[in-house]
């Protein structure tokens, strides 16, 4: 593969970097990244990954753009309100960089479709905003051995971790089960500062770029925690849990779970007992 003149110009500032060069740029142009959620995390991540020249970017989202999204979901514009997020995302990324093939997956991920959606990608970037999807993505990535960058945000806080299935701690090593519905508020209820989403989404993009280039250290086995008010970054070591239900020595989670239904069932059972 030979870089075109316009590509040499476009990517010159990263080709200059030690350990990137033309070979690194070719790796990026041949890479396939799936972004789950074209929201607060997926937006900045998508912008940087497209700008860097990732060859193929898939975006999963079933929602349409709402006016209240625009405070943090910087892929979309006011004129996109009412349109599918995957379509405005695709248009924006293609405008930035026509080298990138953007695949719009307008769907909600379930245990039925997720393995098929992720199978063609090299690495998955989870920017989802709910626990059922987060666990589904973690489980699907571990079961199909796909590297995963996780990010989460709420109010003034953010976190990120990178998961190399079988090698480093997965999301269930950290948090074995989703919290009961209603216990942890969502951004919809608790609020979120847009710049916090920007930081965490950008950290996720950075993880993906390093993974593809094979440079530096990844956020594997350590959870990065950001607080915007202090402001502070902390790292907490997270060893792989040998008792993890998913990636431990005796796994009990061996197939995908659609938590929404499961949680509803459980909450109604709890109610009837009470």
């Amino acid at each position, binding site marked *: 593969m030979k*870089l075109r003149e316009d590509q*040499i*110009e476009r990517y010159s*500032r990263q*080709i*200059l970097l030690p350990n990137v*060069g*033309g*070979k690194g740029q070719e790796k990026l142009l041949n890479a396939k990244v799936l972004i789950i959620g074209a929201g607060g995390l997926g937006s900045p991540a998508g912008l940087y990954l497209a700008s860097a020249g990732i060859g193929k970017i898939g975006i999963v989202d079933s929602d349409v753009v709402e006016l209240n999204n625009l405070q943090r979901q910087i892929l979309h514009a006011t004129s996109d309100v009412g349109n599918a997020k995957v379509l405005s995302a695709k248009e924006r990324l293609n405008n930035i960089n026509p080298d990138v093939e953007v695949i719009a997956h307008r769907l909600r991920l379930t245990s039925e479709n997720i393995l098929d959606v992720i199978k063609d990608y090299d690495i998955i970037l989870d920017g989802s905003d709910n626990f059922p999807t987060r666990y589904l993505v973690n489980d699907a990535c571990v079961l199909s051995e796909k590297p995963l960058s996780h990010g989460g945000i709420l109010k003034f806080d953010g976190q990120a971790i990178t998961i190399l299935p079988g090698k480093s701690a997965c999301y269930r090593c950290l948090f074995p089960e989703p919290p009961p519905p209603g216990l942890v508020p969502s951004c919809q209820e608790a609020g979120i500062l847009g710049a916090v989403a920007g930081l965490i989404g950008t950290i996720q993009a950075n993880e993906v770029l390093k993974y593809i280039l094979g440079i530096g250290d990844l956020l594997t086995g350590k959870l990065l925690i950001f607080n915007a008010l202090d402001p502070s970054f902390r790292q907490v070591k997270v060893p792989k849990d040998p008792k993890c239900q998913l990636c431990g020595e005796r796994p009990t989670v061996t197939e995908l779970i659609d938590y929404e239904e499961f949680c509803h069932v459980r909450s109604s059972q709890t109610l009837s007992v009470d």
Partner: protein
Amino acid sequence: MDEARIDERIDLSGVICPNNFVKTKLKLEEMKQGQILEAILDNGEPIRDVPRAGKEKGPPILKVEKIGNKWRLLIKKV
């Protein structure tokens, strides 16, 4: 320096900084260890910057000579 040993040539006349860098780097990447690249650079900023970058962290520059209003560099791929 054995002039007969030049393996590749790149003419960077009219190519501004840092694109002349980038192109030199890309050319060197394609070459084999120990091969010699002859690069032609413009006077001014390019000749001030390229050898400096070479000294900091890059391949050794074996020769720098002025030819008219241009410069000729011999760079070894390491």
